């Protein structure tokens, strides 16, 4: 990059209020003192990193095909060795590689393989111990063990992959605990409501976690958590509104506040996910309201024309917010 171009871009960013004088000076001081900013973000994954992960995915696929083709021929020991054994072996290889700087990227792939295979391994062990693995209580046990292991691994090694799988396993654990408590106590209508509240709670939890990670070494997860969080939160809130004649007035009335809240939060949080999902769910909400309340009075074609116009307005402002405040956010 040319010096003049760099200085010009800094000037433009300062005009837009994206960088402050202190931030520019801080970056200059860091560079002049020889401390280079860390580039371990998942966003800046190099070609070799991509190849590692593709290799890891192929290994996982190979294990899956091997198990699928030969499952009935395996005895108990082989079944446990080919699932739980593989998970433990991959984890240990990951730990050994993690100790060397040059193999650190590859170690992530082994941790990934271990995380993908270990739930299957634990289910196989519990099945062979005679437990009914289709029950929610066994699901609670499996994912409680996995969440604890991955939280402990994060505490020991501070790698983002452990945080990611702690969140994934923790989410599944939450689903199973709720399922365990609910059991057979509720009717199918109420089960659907509980499911929607579960997704709402998880969405909100992801948004809080994403915000917390923003200022920590795990900031690579913020974008993913914001995306899944806003998707889950707004999707569940829209579903909770129901459909005429069984609509829930509380959720239908509060939904515009939630969706505009998410859109406006995209500016201070500098999140494109908030803007994208906020705009998409606002469009969804407009279409839902049109379908629910305005098709009979106005007629379906006119309702569609009006909702199309409103959607165009939403799209225009979404693009405007994106250009004005979020263009430099990747």
């Amino acid at each position, binding site marked *: 990059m040319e010096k003049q171009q760099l200085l010009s871009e800094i000037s433009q960013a300062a005009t837009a209020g994206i960088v402050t004088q202190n931030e520019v000076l801080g970056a200059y001081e860091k560079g002049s003192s020889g401390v280079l900013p860390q580039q371990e973000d998942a966003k800046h994954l190099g070609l070799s990193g991509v190849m590692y992960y593709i290799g890891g995915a192929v290994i996982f696929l190979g294990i899956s095909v091997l198990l699928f083709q030969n499952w009935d021929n395996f005895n108990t020991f082989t079944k446990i060795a080919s699932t739980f054994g593989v998970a433990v072996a991959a984890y240990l290889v990951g730990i050994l590689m993690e100790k060397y700087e040059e193999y650190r990227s590859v170690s992530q792939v082994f941790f990934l393989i271990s995380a993908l295979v270990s739930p299957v391994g634990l289910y196989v062990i519990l099945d062979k111990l005679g437990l009914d693995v289709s029950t929610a209580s066994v699901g609670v046990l499996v994912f409680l063990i996995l969440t604890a292991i991955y939280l402990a691994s994060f505490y020991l090694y501070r790698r983002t992959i452990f945080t990611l799988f702690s969140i994934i396993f923790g989410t*599944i654990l939450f689903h199973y605990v709720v399922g365990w408590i609910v059991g*057979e106590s509720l009717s199918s209508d109420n089960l659907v409501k509980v499911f929607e509240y579960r997704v709402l709670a998880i969405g909100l939890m*992801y948004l809080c976690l994403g915000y917390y990670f923003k200022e920590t070494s795990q900031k690579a997860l913020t974008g993913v958590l914001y995306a899944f969080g806003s998707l889950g939160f707004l999707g569940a809130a829209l579903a909770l509104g129901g459909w005429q004649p069984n609509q829930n007035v509380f959720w239908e009335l509060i939904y515009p506040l939630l969706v505009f809240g998410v859109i406006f939060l995209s500016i201070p949080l500098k999140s494109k996910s908030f803007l994208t999902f906020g705009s998409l769910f606002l469009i969804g909400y407009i279409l839902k309201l049109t379908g629910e309340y305005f098709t009979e009075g106005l007629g379906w074609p006119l309702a569609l024309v009006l909702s199309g116009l409103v959607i165009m307005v939403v799209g225009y402002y979404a693009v405007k917010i994106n250009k004005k405040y979020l263009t430099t956010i990747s």
Partner: protein
Amino acid sequence: MINKKNLPLLLAMSIPVVMIVVLALSIYLPGMGKQPKQDFVYATGNIDYSGYQYPVVNGQVQQIEPRPLKMDFPDQKFASSVPANFYRYDVKNNTSISLQFDAVQKLRLSPSIESSDGYTVERGNGEGNFPFGGGGDYNSWFLKGHNRASKLKVKLDSSPYNYTNLQFIGWVE
């Protein structure tokens, strides 16, 4: 004193915990201290629509024989000609006691879906698998009431057609 920086993390952790606690309280509190008292009678085995029917009339179970099929084969004994097996479910001890039809006829039964103390006999809802599972099981039967459900130890006898079905006959009065 809570560090303000950790507030989002604490909030994130507390959301699922609060939901679990609220859900558990709303499900278990209403049924606290309540136990089912009324036994019921059920039939298993051959109880499909073409077999014997067992309606409860004036508090007593009746047996209606199946109509003979037009395309009957004289050499073959059809499933529909085999009567069902009867059990009285003892809700206090959670056991099924086998009964002959004569013994069932001597009992005074109520065919109402709900017992006088607010319980129903229902099949599992089938929700129970990864990743959004409850604890359900479509092949199990439950005694439900007051927001609680307990799994019944019913005898699901196979019919000649391998039906593992259950027919609720009535509550013992």
